[in-house]
């Protein structure tokens, strides 16, 4: 049932790199362990540090299909697990002949063809390599955690009318969270945990260079240092890796090859999205 995809931590690093995702020891080791131990991996961290991208890249690196459950307020079992196609069921019941017994009809309408499979069930039933991404778990209501807990403990789902469906092959599960709220201790205990933070300067520079190869190394270095200075300002929304990348693209598009004060002033809007952050940065960095 457990079929590990990675041979070693180094193998994780190499293959993720091949898929365009640059890791460090922490990321590579944790992904390796999630794969080896067959445990779900909970990735927490600020917006835009590459949580979602990590799951996607693991799928790409292992030739697995990515199945994504996007969480939101109000997400329920019917959207996460499965649902009966009641319209089709009603049609079937109404079309039944008078001499059909209720039992027969019952067995009929609660059969596979009336079942609408949702991401969790779909992922569990697959026999090919699968990465299940449960994205932005903190956006879902607390009740959904209970549901996840059940599914992720035994990798099985019970449908009263059909019986228990057990994973033929465990999907590699990634849960992401922005930590806008704390997930339950029980869920955390069930998962391996990776706190993904802004990368160190070196790795961020490498990421920028790999995503925007046109940018000169010197400029990338300057850019990353400046972004780090911005992050130290206690802004409402600190610039993330996505913003670093966007900034590099912008500078390239404008044909700028050094990040002097004028260049920063002209392009700061790419990096800071809130007006109040913009003001605060301008004052503190004395960009007038």
């Amino acid at each position: 049932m457990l079929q590990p995809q990675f041979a070693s931590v180094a193998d994780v690093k190499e293959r993720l790199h091949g898929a365009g995702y640059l890791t460090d020891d922490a990321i590579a080791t944790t992904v390796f362990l999630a794969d080896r131990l067959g445990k779900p991996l909970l990735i927490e961290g600020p917006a835009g540090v590459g949580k979602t991208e990590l799951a996607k890249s693991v799928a790409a690196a292992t030739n697995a299909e990515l199945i994504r459950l996007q969480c939101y307020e109000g997400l329920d079992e019917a959207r996460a697990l499965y649902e009966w196609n009641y319209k089709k069921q009603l049609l079937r019941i109404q079309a039944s002949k008078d001499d059909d017994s209720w039992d027969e009809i019952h067995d009929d309408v609660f059969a596979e063809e009336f079942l609408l499979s949702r991401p969790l069930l779909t992922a569990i039933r697959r026999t090919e390599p699968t990465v299940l991404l449960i994205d932005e778990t903190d956006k879902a209501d607390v009740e959904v955690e209970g549901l996840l807990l059940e599914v992720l403990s035994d990798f099985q789902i019970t449908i009263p009318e059909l019986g228990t469906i057990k994973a033929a092959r465990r999907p590699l599960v990634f849960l992401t969270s922005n930590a806008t709220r704390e997930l339950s201790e029980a869920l955390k205990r069930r998962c391996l945990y990776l706190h993904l933070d802004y990368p160190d300067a070196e790795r961020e520079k490498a990421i920028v260079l790999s995503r925007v190869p046109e940018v000169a190394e010197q400029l990338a270095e300057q850019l990353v240092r400046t972004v780090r200075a911005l992050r130290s300002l206690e802004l409402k929304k600190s610039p993330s890796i996505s913003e670093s990348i966007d900034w590099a693209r912008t500078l390239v598009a404008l044909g700028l090859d050094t990040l002097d004060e004028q260049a920063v002033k002209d392009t700061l809007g790419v990096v800071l999205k809130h007006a109040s952050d913009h003001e605060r940065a301008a004052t503190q960095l004395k960009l007038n």
Partner: protein
Amino acid sequence: MNGGGLLEREIAFLDALRVAGIQVSLAEVLDATRALGAIDLMEREQLRQAFSACVLKRPAHRTTFNTLFDLWFPPALGDSVAAEFAEEPQLDEDGDPMPADPSVLRELLKQLLLEGDEEKLRKFARQVVSDLGRSDSAPGRQSWFSYKVLRSLSPETLMASLLENLLAGQEKGGLAERVARQTINERIRQFQEMVESEVRRRLAEDRGVEQVSKNAVQPLAEQVDFLRASRDDMAELRRQVFPLARRLATRLTARRRLGRSGRLDFRRTVRASLGTGGVPIVTHHRPHKPHKPELVVLCDVSGSVAGFAHFTLMLAYALREQFTKVRAFAFIDTCDEVTRFFTPGGDVADALARMSAEAQLVWFDGHSDYGHSIETFAERYPDAVGPRTSLLVLGDARNNYRATALPTLRALVQKSRHAYWLNPEPSAYWGSGDSATAQYADVIEMVEVRNAVQLEDFVQRLLPA
């Protein structure tokens, strides 16, 4: 490390985490053991990460975790590495063993801080601790001190000349300087941490890990007294306030099942329709969503509880997302509504600054007056507290021997759904001096909440689920 030895180390390390206040469950211990079987044990960072993935589930605990990991799984033994460091050709000018001359070492440190190579810096830290950090307190009995190292090298005083170098002619005072400073500060802090960690390692070799690890870790942010929290502690607490608010809200949420007014439950409806020839005569509905309660926070923001007030207002602010209606009132010797300062998505620091500038909190002399504040609250906001309201009073009840307005508070408590008074002062001091705790505790349940852990306990145990 052989197999048996490793297992013992693991258990001892996990125990040390628990002693430091990090919960580790049995399931997590088992995970860690399996993880160690899967990784390359010779790779120390893999080992650290394997433990961290299995047992470290709150970012706020990372520093403590790392300190203890470095003690229980040290990167080196004894002096061995100093010799290794001496092989770095560019650092060893004469081919002699490194001299322990502080001025030469300072110059070397400057170079390393400029370069920013972490590995070299770490080796250097090891070397200087061995050269400068030792003191022989008694014959045959040595000790280790990071202050000796940091004082003779005083890395912070290198800032000016490092800036000069990094800025390389660029204008001072602007963006470039800010960026350069940031970079240098990061590296200096890194070096200081390396020295401290190295000193702990040497101490642990001399005195045993258990002994050193007990003293090595700072209290976790959630254990720090509100009334004594530093700025860093406050920043950490701020990060913890949202999760706490959520748990508080879940506890206060009344779960009421309201018959058939919820969403249609298709499965049950279809099943029922089998009995009526497929016509859904009887509809079934999902239980109603739990309704969100209303919260009123009445918060002392006088000087004696400044740290606590800061925290509780942040809490009230975080709670806004969890309750249908949150109203916050602050008082010193009179009371004003401050809800308007805490807009969703707003900045907490700004809100606090605006509140102190604009809210009417002082009426007479700016010393706490609970009695007058409570009367003002009841008078000016008569419909703030009702049968659906949870009322939280936050303060130390240090009332400067003034009137208490007990009957008014009693009436408020009776009108509300729940009412609690959270007091940040150690309960041992309650009732001493000008504390009106005893009187108030007669009419409202008073709980000692000195730190975030106690607040969480309060949330978990005292509030009705």
